[in-house]
């Protein structure tokens, strides 16, 4: 026999498929939905449907968008001479929030990871080269994550891009702001020292 009536069990099962949601959280969410006003749950259903119906990937930069090409790619206010490469759309949002960068983006949708079966073919690298053929790009900024997979991806892309002759830069890496030097490991500290800046 099931612990709950079948529709409830089904909902819990579905919720549990979400990342970061375990059995207990799934149960809590299910009961929240169960007790919520009809209106509220309808809005949730609608939001989910809308995302699935309307959100597509930009054919130029692979960012998520509701128009193709996306607003970043078509905005006249952006500097078309620079492309900043990130792993995920939410990395783009993080950078955009700083309002420091006014160039274009390219989203890879992942990073190299042989263990998880992700090679160059699983990443959106091909259409980056198509872009570089038609657009006059002067600088590529590699903003993949500062972990082993992001580093490998940046190293790999550098090898492919170097022969094209544009400027290739990597976001600075080293001691995190607001942290303590004590907690930086040798390699991070080494990076922070080699990439130190003149004041």
């Amino acid at each position, binding site marked *: 026999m099931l612990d709950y009536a079948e529709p409830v069990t089904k909902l819990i099962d579905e919720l549990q498929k979400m990342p970061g949601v375990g059995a207990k959280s799934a149960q809590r969410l299910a009961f929240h939905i169960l007790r919520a006003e009809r209106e509220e749950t309808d809005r949730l259903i609608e939001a989910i449907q809308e995302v699935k119906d309307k959100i597509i990937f930009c054919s130029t930069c692979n960012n998520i968008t509701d128009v193709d090409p996306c607003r970043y790619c078509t905005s006249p206010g952006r500097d078309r001479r620079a492309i900043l490469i990130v792993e995920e759309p939410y990395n783009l949002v993080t950078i955009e929030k700083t309002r420091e960068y006014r160039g274009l983006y390219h989203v890879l949708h992942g990073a*190299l*990871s*042989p*263990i998880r079966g992700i*090679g*160059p073919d699983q990443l959106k690298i091909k259409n980056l080269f198509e872009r570089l053929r038609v657009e006059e790009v002067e600088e590529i900024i590699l903003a993949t994550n500062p972990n*082993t*997979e992001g*580093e*490998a*991806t940046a*190293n*790999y892309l550098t*090898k*492919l891009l170097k022969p094209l002759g544009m400027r290739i830069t990597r976001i600075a890496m080293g001691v995190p702001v607001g942290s303590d030097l*004590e*907690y*930086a*490991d*040798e*390699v*991070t500290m*080494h990076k922070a020292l080699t990439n130190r800046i003149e004041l």
Partner: protein
Amino acid sequence: MLLTRIEASGFRNLEGFAQFGSGLNIFYGDNAQGKTNWLEAIYILGNTKSFRTSQLRECIAFDQQQAVLRGETLRGSTTKQIQLLIAEDSKQLFINGKREALTRYLGNLDVFAFSLEEMDVIRGEPGQRRRFIDRGAVAVSPRFLNTLSRYNQVIKQKNRLLGEASQSDNPAQYISQVEAWNEQLVELGAAIHDQRASYVERMNQVLDQNDHGRAIFGAERITVRYRSQLEGKGDLDNYADLFGERLALRLTAEIAAGHSLIGPHRDDLEIMSDGREVSRYGSAGQQRSALLLLDLAQVSIYNSIYEESPVLLIDDIDAELDRGRIEALLSELEGRAQTFVSTSRRAIANRYRDRAQTHRVERGQAVRETGSYDGVFVGAGFDNDAIDQADDGSMSKPTAG
């Protein structure tokens, strides 16, 4: 640093808690009662790893979901509660009730252990010796753990990639991917090589100065040497460049082999007694002495860096050492490190009763005995006041005899 108290629940067969003195602490009792389990609990509480198993979940008691170790440490006049929770496939660390990351947790209770299992450092695979150096190096520089774990991640990724490449019809297409991982390997590998080499160098200095230790354990001069796989291939003082060159040179060989062939994960430590390899030429007794001297050297290095003592565990002390060596060792450690030993011999517990805290272990419970000659128990380990009164601090001090 001192461990003043430990409490275990759901951990192997242990039950209740035990309180400790600042000097020598002895667990004694019959076999299979839990003596080594108490030592292991102390080791895991400090290092978050076991000296007996690589699978922490094996420590969870048969009928339990999780094991919890709770300890109280004393440093100067500061006490800290540290806690480690072991679940089926995770562990959680707490300091003063607050969850903490591994790098912040480590260093609150540094524990070195001498046990039968550790003899693999002498006799076993090179990996055992690399881990021995790494444990010592991490204790004096906890952030080194980060470098090690990132290196291991990169090696895993690279091995997977090389495995794929070796099976492929067109292995050449993998070259630039392998190179992308190699770049990180060079950086991390150089950090590991340099850290290990300088730790081993330091160890040699300590071994060289330890005339006292030599006097105890016989006349042999123990020396160690970090043996890089790249020895004889170029300038090891500039490891990063050398490693990079070798990786480039061996790229196709690595692709053909399907796994990585070079790097500090292939290095070794040479342990010599009067210039001869202990693993090959030493008797069992010489091997034990050598290992003990290495352990003591680690304690010394730790001492010289932190100006305080780590905790030292010696499992089954009478199986490892004869009476004279036990006596010499324990007086050598007097005042240098809080020491925990286990023994099945009541005679040993009796002999040191006047300067040690002895805990009789029976069915997982550690029952503390007083230092008094009549051997009357003070409660069953639950009567805090009685224990505090009995502990006038004199037990940890040496007395004649």
